[in-house]
């Protein structure tokens, strides 16, 4: 499969339009999944994917091949999603302050975390928790922890500094952990050792 993809990329770089179309068919599910995870809904994800392939088509001649084609495409998709989210200013999450941890923290200290995990699968809880994260935090954790992009690449595509990317990643992981694995009395218990 990677060799097949590499051959298609080479042909597409040489101007073979049919090869690029085939690249779209081969990679569209993966690209759409990333776009959907970044923007959180089908309509926006559709727009982001179309824009991403258009940019990839225009830029394929400049793709040097020193990174994997899929990684290159992920970066373009991330950039398109960031631009798209920037335009979508009236989204409910954008009105929330980033530090509003109380909204995501589970403050019910009587609940047994193990029982909660059993009640719904970890993956379902995680997917739901990701959906609830503010887009700025979700983008970074998806790109780093799901798609393994470097901090440098994430910062470049989202138009933020590497430090900001790292800070957002820690916040995102922390919020996800608080939702998926809430510790009993986490909010008010601060014990020293």
């Amino acid at each position: 499969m990677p060799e097949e993809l590499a051959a298609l990329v080479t042909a597409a770089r040489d101007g073979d339009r049919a090869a690029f179309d085939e690249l779209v068919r081969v990679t569209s599910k993966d690209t759409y999944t990333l776009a959907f995870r970044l923007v959180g809904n089908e309509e926006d994800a559709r727009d982001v994917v179309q824009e991403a392939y258009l940019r990839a088509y225009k830029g394929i001649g400049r793709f040097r091949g020193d990174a994997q084609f899929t990684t290159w495409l992920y970066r373009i998709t991330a950039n398109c999603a960031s631009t798209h989210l920037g335009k979508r200013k009236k989204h409910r999450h954008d009105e929330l302050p980033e530090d509003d941890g109380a909204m995501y923290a589970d403050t019910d200290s009587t609940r047994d975390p193990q029982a909660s995990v059993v009640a719904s699968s970890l993956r379902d809880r995680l997917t739901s928790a990701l959906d609830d994260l503010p887009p700025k935090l979700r983008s970074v954790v998806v790109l780093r922890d799901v798609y393994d992009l470097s901090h440098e690449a994430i910062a470049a595509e989202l138009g933020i500094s590497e430090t900001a990317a790292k800070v957002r990643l820690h916040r995102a992981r922390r919020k996800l952990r608080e939702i998926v694995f809430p510790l009993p009395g986490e909010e008010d218990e601060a014990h020293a050792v």
Partner: protein
Amino acid sequence: MRCDELSELLASSPDVSDIADRRARKHVEGCLRCQAEVAQYRKLLKALRSLREELVATPHGLVGDILVRLEEAGERTAVRSLLAGRRAAYVGGLAVATAAAGAGAAVLLVSRNRRLRAAA
């Protein structure tokens, strides 16, 4: 050292051996709460990585829509390059005509000068 002081550190380094600060590492090694938190971060990262293999169902007609947009973009590019080609041919023709007119004028001037010199 308090557990809540290490919260950000644990989120960034779910592997205890990666914690550079010796004091912090020692605390985590001796603290059940922090160790539980570290274990949870590891589980969380494993679950996040596994999402990579899980594809979302693509909406009907997505690939078709992308190909149509590419087609349109390709047509626009072709029209632009055609126009650019015509413009280049027009400018080139104009340049050749100008050069020819210049050369003609120069020949006329030279022959006129010779005739004037011969008459004198």
